[in-house]
């Protein structure tokens, strides 16, 4: 990056700085804080106390390049936010479908906006559907509409999207393992309204890989992975505008993983997924073009920015070199940032607004495509409308008041940022090698290695917090006596009963002969699917699911079929 004389001069400068710095630290003796004597990032990577040109001298322009140029370290596209702001993607979902709809409308009213002014909704399903149940199941008690929307059928979706043109909007369906029923119900609704699947825009999460580090009941990893490939395969052929897979790095960091682990795990999973998609008959480009990422933005400001830059680079180089991806869109890391929920505190909750603003600011500087900013009361309960609106305002202030949107990749060229980006990229690639040596991500998921690794990191974090070495303002430092928070959001207690009555009415009133026939077809497809290998995958499970959803099959019914056919088990042993 620099000529020899510049490097020599830089080294000389560093030498004199080192002596001067050491003299300052010396004066503090044992009182010098660790960050002065042994600085590290929150991932534990050693860093320096100041950086110089020679620290980045080994980084050729081919590792950084221009925004929009391979290997995309500096961003996917030449223009970042100059022509289009990142999409506001607050996570929305609670109560009955109409409750969620009213929050969607309220936020849209407040300026929540997607790409090029399009409507964009990031919708999360409730705990009952995450478990693959219907609201009248005994285990659903108290969970209907909690942590998400109670949407269990095509009919519920119709209520949710009443009067909206599905072709003119983008909908992210945040499901856990009920990916197939949710997509099938959405397609079935679209078909009822005279549309076809290829006209729909949005996202399936396809989050089977998260069961490696998220502790909920799940399909066995191999069957889950096959379901992921089946969906990619179906959409590649039938839904060209649909984003098929969301790499859930956020969950890995929330579960306690470091920044390095977050991106390393996602790349390792990406390798396994693309490998399997190719086995199923797709080209690397067909599979890759519609992948996206959900990435956390946490407290170590520069590390989190550099993590995003590093992920873009190692994803692009790996997909090109390992799988021969050629289309730039196949090498792009499209990121939905989620500001770190696990770092929010129940104590002094308004302080969370400051944290989330910093997280969102970092994400913006790293050039992400969309953002969810956590609401300040999320460590307490489902956000109130006021808190959700303030979270949206955080995005709007950064977007429209700071002028950071005028320059692509504004931190590029900082000796520290470039050096740390490279360091994180290399550390993540080492992790990928370690996982590959075990036979890949799914093998490391099966063996519990991923879970153990993440839990070890979670434990380190907790020890640092307990010892006070890692400060959490309001929790382990600057603690105040405060009254219990007031005005917390509550899901209407009557909603549960309404949801139960609706689903029972649906079962009584639907065309049951059609439902029986469609469910029999779905059962056969699921049984067949259970024994398939990747080359056999052809989208037929999804097709059968759409027929069932069209005949008003509920989420619980469809998930029941899949659980029986594929297995369903409690998460990680302890």
């Amino acid at each position, binding site marked *: 990056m620099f000529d020899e004389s510049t490097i020599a001069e830089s080294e000389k400068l560093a030498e004199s700085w080192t002596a001067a710095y050491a003299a300052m630290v010396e004066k503090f003796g044992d009182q010098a804080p660790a960050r002065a004597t042994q600085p590290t990032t929150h991932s534990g990577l050693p860093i320096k106390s100041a950086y110089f040109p020679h620290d980045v001298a080994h980084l050729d322009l081919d590792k950084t390049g221009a925004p929009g140029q391979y290997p995309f370290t500096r961003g996917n596209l030449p223009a970042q936010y100059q022509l289009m702001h990142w999409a506001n993607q607050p996570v929305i979902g609670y109560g009955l479908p109409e409750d969620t709809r009213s929050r969607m409308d309220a936020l849209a009213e407040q300026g929540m906006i997607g790409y090029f002014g399009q409507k964009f909704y990031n919708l999360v399903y409730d*705990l*009952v559907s995450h478990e693959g149940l219907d609201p009248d199941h005994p285990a659903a008690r108290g969970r209907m509409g909690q942590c998400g929307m109670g949407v269990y059928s095509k009919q519920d979706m119709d209520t949710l999207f009443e009067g909206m043109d599905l072709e003119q909007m983008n909908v992210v369906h945040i499901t856990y393992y009920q990916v197939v029923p949710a997509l099938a119900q959405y397609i079935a609704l679209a078909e009822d309204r005279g549309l076809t699947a290829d006209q729909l825009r949005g996202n399936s999460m396809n989050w089977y890989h998260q069961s490696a580090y998220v502790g*909920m009941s799940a399909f066995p990893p191999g069957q889950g992975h096959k379901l992921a490939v089946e969906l990619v395969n179906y959409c590649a052929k039938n839904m060209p505008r649909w984003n098929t897979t969301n790499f859930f790095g956020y969950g890995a960091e929330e579960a306690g993983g470091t920044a390095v682990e977050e991106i390393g795990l996602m790349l390792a999973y990406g390798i396994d997924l693309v490998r399997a998609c190719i086995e199923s008959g797709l080209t690397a480009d067909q599979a890759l073009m519609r992948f996206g990422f959900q990435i956390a933005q946490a407290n170590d400001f520069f590390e989190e920015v550099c993590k995003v830059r590093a992920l873009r680079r190692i994803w692009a180089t790996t997909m090109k070199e390992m799988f021969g991806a050629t289309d730039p869109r196949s090498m792009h890391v499209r990121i939905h940032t989620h500001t770190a929920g696990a770092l929010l505190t*129940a104590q002094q909750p308004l302080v969370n607004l400051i944290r989330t603003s910093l997280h969102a600011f970092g994400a913006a500087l790293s050039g992400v495509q969309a953002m969810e900013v956590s609401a300040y009361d999320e460590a307490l309960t489902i956000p109130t409308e006021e808190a959700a609106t303030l979270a949206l305002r955080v995005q709007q202030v950064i977007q429209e008041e700071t002028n950071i949107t005028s320059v692509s990749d504004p931190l590029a060229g900082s000796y520290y940022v470039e050096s740390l980006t490279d360091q994180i990229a290399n550390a993540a690639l080492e992790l990928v090698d370690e996982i590959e040596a075990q036979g890949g991500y799914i093998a490391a998921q099966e063996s519990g290695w991923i879970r153990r690794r993440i839990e070890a990191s979670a434990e380190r974090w907790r020890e640092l917090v307990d010892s006070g070495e890692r400060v959490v303002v309001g929790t382990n430092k600057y603690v105040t006596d405060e009254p219990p928070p007031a005005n917390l959001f509550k*899901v209407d207690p009557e909603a549960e009963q309404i949801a139960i009555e609706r689903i029972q009415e649906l079962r009584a009133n639907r065309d049951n002969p059609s439902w029986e026939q469609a469910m029999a077809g779905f059962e056969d497809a699921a049984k067949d699917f259970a024994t398939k290998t990747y080359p056999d995958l052809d989208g037929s499970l999804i097709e059968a699911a759409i027929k069932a959803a069209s005949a008003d099959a509920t989420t619980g019914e469809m998930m029941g079929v899949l659980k029986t056919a594929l297995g369903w088990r409690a998460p990680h042993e302890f």
Partner: protein
Amino acid sequence: MNSDAEPIRILLAKPTHDCHDRGVRLVARKMREAGFEVVFSNFLLTEEVVNAVLDEDVDVVGISASSGGHLGIFEELLAGLKEAGRDDTLVIGGGVIPPDDEATILGWGVSAIFGPGTNAGQAIEMIRSNLEGAS
């Protein structure tokens, strides 16, 4: 409690549909390190917890809930323990439980709720002093 005493046995249980298990699994490890015999389980129905209390013959049961639904769980658990004649079991909870609900749950006879920001040491201490006090 002296060193000859039987180790404290605790069941830590978490609903399967609640993904926020980072805290409870850490607490489980810390309790094990502190000499407790820890059983950890994920459950769908509260009756599974009641059965596990009986099968594992634990002194303490802890419910971790960070995604709602906690009121029903504690209500069912307390009723189930009573019916099984095991309402001597120390019941505690943790996770994201709003203050109003916490007050309700404590009113039902749950001994403590450890919310965000508390640590495993506090729970360990509370259990020890509680069981010692009882013996």
